[in-house]
């Protein structure tokens, strides 16, 4: 190996430490028995996890986040998948522009989107409701679904759908039995990411959520700003676990669809 390669690997190693370190440190710190967030912990316990699962102050916010994330996941997946199919398979002018429009919430600063919701929902007295959270999260999750499902659709062969149609299947049958199954892994991945985007959102929650609709990230945010509660370390490691579970699910879906394709 040349000196240049060694330097490259050294840099890559340091960058991996930089990317992973915050997560590793916080997970290890979460097992402290003392409230001082020592690293590494001198004595080990699960008391902060226990604290999270037993204090309503914390777990109730997680239940709200879960409810909002499930609704967001369902609606964003349906809207986004339909839009992706329309863009890829449809024939109408302005498809590219429409696609850019559907994806655009990804580049609009989330603070600006959240500010818009603040004005919108305060006008209809919907601030501090889970409906506001669900609508806001659906706007930031749908673009992700459009991108993922659109990419998968472009690798499938529309001739299968022509075949189904020529054999007498109507529009909905060919959609349900041919188009959707051909991209089911992508739809599953998109749903998993949509769930995660909603569950992890803090910015929209800061603007539209109130005392009666505090999500887990919003409660974390308030806690970080005003006190340091070691329960945060336990929650952080649980949220990291959630991200890893989502990534594993996506990887399993990808593999199952790859093996489907080899069999057929």
């Amino acid at each position: 190996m040349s000196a240049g390669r060694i330097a490259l690997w050294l840099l890559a190693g340091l960058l991996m430490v930089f990317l992973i370190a915050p997560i590793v440190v916080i997970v290890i710190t979460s097992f402290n028995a003392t409230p001082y967030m020592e690293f590494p912990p001198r004595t080990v316990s699960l008391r902060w996890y226990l604290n999270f699962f037993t204090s309503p102050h914390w777990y109730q916010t997680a239940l709200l986040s879960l409810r909002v994330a499930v609704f967001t996941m369902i609606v964003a997946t349906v809207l986004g998948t339909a839009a992706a199919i329309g863009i890829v398979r449809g024939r109408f002018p302005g498809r590219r522009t429409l696609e850019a429009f559907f994806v655009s919430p990804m580049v609009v600063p989330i603070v600006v989107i959240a500010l818009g919701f603040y004005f919108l929902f305060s006008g209809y007295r919907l601030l501090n409701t889970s409906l506001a959270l669900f609508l806001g999260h659906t706007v930031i999750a749908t673009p992700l679904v459009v991108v993922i499902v659109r990419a998968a659709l472009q690798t499938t062969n529309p001739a299968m759908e022509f075949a189904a149609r020529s054999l007498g299947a109507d529009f909905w049958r060919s959609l349900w039995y041919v188009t959707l199954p051909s991209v089911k892994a992508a739809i599953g991945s998109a749903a998993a990411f949509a769930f995660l985007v909603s569950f992890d959102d803090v910015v929209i929650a800061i603007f539209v959520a109130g005392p009666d609709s505090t999500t887990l990230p919003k409660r974390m945010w308030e806690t970080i700003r005003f006190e340091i509660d070691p329960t945060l370390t336990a929650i952080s490691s649980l949220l990291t676990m959630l991200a890893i579970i989502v990534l594993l699910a996506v990887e399993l879906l990808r593999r199952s669809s790859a093996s489907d394709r080899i069999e057929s």
Partner: protein
Amino acid sequence: MQSTRFWRSREGALVLPALLFYLLVYVYPLARIAGWSLFDPDFTLKFYREALAEPAYFKALRNTLEISVLVTLIALALGYPLAYLMTTTSARARRVLTVLILIPFWTSVLVRTFAWLVILGQNGLVNRSLVALGWFDAPHKLLFNMFGVQVGMVQVLLPFMVFPLYGVMSRIDMNIVRVARSLGAGPYKVFVHVFLPLSLPGVAAGCILVFLLAIGFYVTPALLGGPGQITLATMIDMMITTFLNFGFAATLGIILLVVVAGIFALVSAVMGVNRIVGGESA
């Protein structure tokens, strides 16, 4: 043929639910921001005049751009070699690197920012280690300043630089590089005259993406920055929650939106030209 065309249009109609949802819950709220910035209660430009005249707002705009430019440059300097390594290494090593990038990428930004508060604090891991090693005489202030903001933001945004870079680099035909080598060019010359120019679209895409995301960043500057790192995004929140000044919050939001949309429009115009120039075969 007739039935085929009908079927096509049926598929096109599938965009309608999303379109309706976007108009009501995305475009309409953005229009309301514009409304708040322009009416009080009659049409007025006073918010914009004051926003541009008031040094505090101007400073927030400058902070935002300064932080974003610096984050972009650091992410490019770190991300380019990493993407190059991912392109030129074995498939297995590339998988390992990708997984190590993806896990933090999908972990909550709030969690990662909180982790830096713990790691970089006065009694945090970094200060204690460096004092113990004798590098620092006393704990340094690593948070609530530009350093803390840069560490936090680069950690979050680095993958957004690496993925577009890798996307472009992995499609570069390495035979061209080999030909240049066999014709007698040294590794440095090959890199500067062959690989680097071919990778520039990736550099452009990565820098634009990171810069756009950095401009609107909220959580990390708010938690890891100090008074010198007040950005447009954190100022919008202050206007709403502390000063209840909705007109100014809306005006700053529109300024932020215009900056982002302007960059986006400029870039898509330029990239669009690229697509026309090189896209016929693709």
